[in-house]
């Protein structure tokens, strides 16, 4: 479908004002455990503009997936809750919506692509059926129209002979093809925001590049905002406009992709950038750049700067005062006491 032919909606007005599609403010998510509640996401701020591809980067357990689930309203109900903050999507605070309102939003306005393409499709139905399901549910179109739309979508995500492939079952697809199907499914109702939770992690590198390219293209063509969760800086460089780096449940740095790569301001970001092996450098020389230690456990976050125990630039003060996420002059944000004095090298 051509976005140009769409009838303007009140949403388009909001777009023109330049208000972010999604604005996560001060979000804290707590999980109930035996030992009390654990904040696995703490005071997170993320803003995503119309048509922007925003990468959220971090190690496993840094809280990036939980942030995504909180936005989708898919947190496990009994164990997790949003304890403070708000998730503003097109001016509405999603944390205040009830289940029915949330359900109307899910799939239609915010859609999600999961990490595991091998298990995120129901093996009992054809892929065409599964895409059509969402269309029928949200748009309310008939069976025939929905399957036609499914074929159209499959074609759009680059599946050859879409009409025939729509009749096939998920096990007849390869991983990369399945991820394309998942993306088609997510795009079925033309959502304003697509959350892609490590969509390329389970794929091999050539397929990764194709999927990244596909997501970029769809975002550009449709003006869909994308929250792209990954831990791979190589993918970030390919896909993102802006980047938010998370560590130990907090946002530690955010910037646009060029400046982040060129001149990271947080030592963690710099260390992550250098963890990506390069073809130009000898691996043996890189050994001293490997980051020591492991990310802290949510039960025992360091009291002050959470990265201090692993930081190569650590000073005495890092263990005493809690660093705030400070905006710098050029619209970047960083959570480091020494952000001003450090000059970190990036990668180009």
């Amino acid at each position: 479908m051509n976005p140009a032919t769409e009838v303007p909606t009140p949403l388009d007005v909001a777009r023109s004002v330049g208000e972010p599609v999604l604005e996560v403010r001060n979000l804290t998510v707590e999980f109930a455990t035996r030992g009390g509640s654990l904040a696995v996401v703490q005071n997170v701020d993320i803003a995503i503009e119309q048509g922007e591809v925003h990468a959220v980067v971090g190690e496993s357990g840094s809280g990036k997936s939980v942030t995504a689930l909180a936005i989708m309203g898919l947190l496990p109900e009994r164990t997790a809750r949003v304890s403070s903050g708000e998730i503003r999507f097109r001016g509405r605070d999603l944390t205040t919506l009830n289940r029915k309102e949330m359900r109307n939003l899910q799939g239609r306005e915010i859609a999600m692509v999961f990490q595991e393409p091998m298990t995120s499709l129901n093996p009992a139905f054809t892929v065409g059926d599964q895409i059509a399901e969402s269309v029928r549910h949200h748009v309310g179109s008939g069976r025939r129209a929905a399957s036609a739309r499914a074929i159209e979508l499959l074609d759009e995500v680059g599946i050859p002979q879409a009409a025939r492939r729509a009749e096939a079952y998920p096990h007849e697809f390869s991983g990369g093809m399945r991820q394309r199907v998942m993306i088609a499914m997510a795009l079925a109702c033309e959502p304003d925001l697509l959350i892609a939770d490590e969509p390329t992690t389970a794929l091999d590198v050539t397929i990764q590049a194709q999927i990244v390219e596909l997501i970029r293209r769809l975002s550009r063509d449709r003006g869909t905002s994308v929250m792209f969760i990954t831990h791979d800086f190589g993918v970030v460089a390919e896909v993102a406009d802006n980047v938010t780096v998370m560590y130990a449940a907090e946002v530690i740095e955010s910037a646009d992709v060029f400046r982040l790569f060129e001149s990271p301001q947080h030592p963690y970001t710099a260390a992550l950038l250098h963890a990506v092996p390069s073809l130009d450098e000898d691996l043996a020389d890189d050994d001293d750049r490997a980051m020591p230690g492991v990310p802290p456990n949510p039960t025992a976050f360091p009291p002050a700067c959470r990265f201090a125990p692993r930081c190569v630039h650590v000073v005495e003060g890092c263990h005493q005062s809690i660093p705030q996420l400070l905006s710098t002059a050029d619209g970047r944000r960083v959570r480091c006491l020494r952000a001003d004095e450090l000059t970190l090298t990036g990668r180009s």
Partner: protein
Amino acid sequence: MTTVEIPTGDAPAATRPKTAARRSFVRRFAEQRVAMAALTLLALIVIAAVFASSLAPHPPNAQNLRNILKGPGSDGHLLGTDHLGRDVLSRLIYGARFSLLASVEAVGVGLLIGFLPGLLAGYIGGKVDWCVMRVIEALMAFPPIILAIAVVASLGPGLTNAMIAVGVVFAPRFARMTRDATLSVREETFVEAARSMGLRRSTILRRHVVPHVLSPLIVMTTVLAGVAMIVEAGLSYVGLGAVPPDSSWGTMLAGSIRYTTNSPLLIVWPGLCVVVCVVCLNLIGDGIKDSVGREARGKISR
């Protein structure tokens, strides 16, 4: 598994029609000789039961007191006569009706009562799960026969009453099996994906959970159908199931047990029928398990 289909991302694989998955299940089942033999035998018994009135050589309750306890092959009675001179073969054929009906009733009632609570307990979890599990445990603690006798005592004897009782006994087994299967399906990514699309809970259950719970349930159904048949025979034997002169296999056993010394074969026939049916049901269950089981799941984890 002996399937030859190795699905790839290649286009030719897509030419298979929509029913491919179902058909490959049938093919896999058909390849199991034992299960197919069992299915054929059971089908013959069912056909015999359905067309009993035209297949049976004599009316099942026609007595001939001058011609009692005859051995097989005498006077046109292929399997002989019982203590009232009734044709054993005819009674066996009519008895199949009762025995099959009994197991269908019991399993049906069990599924009716047990399936939905099990599904909801597994999917919703929490308090619902807790409550359902406690009820299940309470019901499981009852010895089945005692419960059946209690129900029959209050509702009066009769095959249907007895089988409702058996169904009540089966219900917690179905519920628990359904719950366990649901628990594992619930965690599948495609269920989460379905939730992320904002589908209604009932839709998710119907389209994304139930199809994956069915295969263990079908296996369990065949096994419990066999158990129901045995219980029916047992209850009828002690006079709590089918009531004479109705000829269920259980009442035939009960009636002929006193004449074992004169005509030992009389108790062999109905007993053999029960055994054959139960074994067939179990073998079919095994066959289904082997051919459906992890069909889809196995391919996923490839």
